[in-house]
């Protein structure tokens, strides 16, 4: 039995999401293997951010099932069928997912260290000392060891985002979601964040899903790129193929427009 018959880490099965009359995700089927790094690109309104948000349970699902690590997350098995998941079940499965946001969302009333130990202590019940050790290690990994006593207001955007990454990692997720994490940063600060993500990718066996406009980064870092258009995957493939020789016309249009803007 080789690893590829193992169940996917994340599976979207016929997932649909609607806002009123607008269908944002349309019967989406997407599988992500353990340890795979997937970049999601597309124009605004294509549903790409919604994919992440639904996986993080920030949005409710309107149709289909989302599976995480072989188990259904949005639903649970009962009496031979699937029913919407109860909060306890949802929380348990959700604990395998971590997310980094475009606008960081750090807790302003806590220091960098405080941000990173809060959830491990409150949610996982870790004793303070252990949580602090873990947090210090992670802050060190993202290059902010000496800033651990600083408040978010005292940090630059790039530093805040790196703290946000450390904070998410402190919960030891199996899947990390990155929602346009450099879009709110000044250009010269993007590099330090992308560098951390690169490091994460090479040193850890994390499954990573990122929505991004950084085409260059996606090209060298991702194992697979998905181009979303109007709620569906228009085209997906290995970056070398998709970026260099896109098969679909919409993909070509999009890439042309994006690369022109550079």
């Amino acid at each position, binding site marked *: 039995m080789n690893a590829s018959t193992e169940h996917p880490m994340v599976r979207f099965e016929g997932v649909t999401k609607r806002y009123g009359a607008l269908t944002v995700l349309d019967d989406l089927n997407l599988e992500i293997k353990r340890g795979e790094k997937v970049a999601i690109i597309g124009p605004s309104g294509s549903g790409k951010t919604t994919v992440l948000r639904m996986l993080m349970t920030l949005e409710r699902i309107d149709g289909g099932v989302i599976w995480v690590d072989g188990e259904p997350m949005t639903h649970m098995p009962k009496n031979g069928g699937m029913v919407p998941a109860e909060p306890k079940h949802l929380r348990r499965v959700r604990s395998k997912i971590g997310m980094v946001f475009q606008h960081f969302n750090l807790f302003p009333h806590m220091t960098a260290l405080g941000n990173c130990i809060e959830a491990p202590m409150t949610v996982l019940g870790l004793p303070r000392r252990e949580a602090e050790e873990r947090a210090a290690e992670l802050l060190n990994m993202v290059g902010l060891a000496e800033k651990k006593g600083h*408040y*978010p207001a005292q940090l630059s955007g790039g530093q805040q985002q790196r703290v946000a990454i450390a904070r998410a990692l402190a919960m030891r997720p199996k899947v990390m979601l990155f929602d346009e994490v450099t879009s709110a940063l000044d250009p010269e600060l993007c590099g330090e964040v992308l560098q951390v993500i690169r490091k994460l990718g090479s040193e850890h066996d994390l499954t990573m899903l990122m929505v991004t406009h950084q085409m260059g980064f996606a090209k060298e870092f991702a194992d697979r790129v998905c181009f979303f258009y109007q709620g569906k995957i228009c085209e997906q493939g290995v970056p070398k193929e998709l970026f260099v020789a896109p098969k679909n016309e919409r993909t070509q249009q999009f890439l042309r427009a994006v690369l022109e803007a550079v």
Partner: protein
Amino acid sequence: MGIFSLSAMLVAALIVIGIMSLFGDNALFMSGLLQGAWLTLQVTALGCVLAVVMATLAALLRLYGAAPLRWLAVTYVEFFRGTSALVQLFWLFFVLPLFGISMEPFTVAVLGLGLNIGAYGAEVVRGAIQGIQKGQWEATTALNMTRWQALKRIILPQAFVAMIPPWGNLFIELLKSTALVSLITMSDLTFRAKTINDTTMQTIPIFTLALLIYLVMSLSITIGMRWLERASLRGMVRGRGH
């Protein structure tokens, strides 16, 4: 007005009170007025505590409670905001005894004013909690916190800071409302001023002194709340877009 101007006014008021007390019978008046001021302070302090408790309870019920509790909170808030504080006090003082519930004026005062200001406070608390950016809630979801953990550790501490200035205003409203208890026979500062005036007819110094004492108390509250706000901000810069 900045903390500096406010403190200047406070000091100026204290100086004027001090100087006035040197003349005529004013020192005598002051002793009577200060006794009344002490009662005013007590009612204010206890009333404020009750108001904060009621406001927090009502706001949380309104935001997160089951339907009947929500309804209860809304009724409480609309009722006490919709009626006049004096009418509420009179009702508690004159009408409630008819139903067999007899309370001391002091209890009536604290209860009536605390419930009244608490209703306004409920909207302040609710506004502050709802004003916390959605991103903070989403971060707590991403970290797998329960709603209660999120409220307790992340949302309420931030809301607290946002609430301080409006609560400051409400505490001052409560202080000013205590003057109403003079109309239900309590010997507060206003009552003392009025009775001393009735007997001595030295209207100007008496009421001026009373006004100045209220001013001192009110400015103290304002300055106190500014300090509290500063202390709570410690490292946080309020209003950052992130």
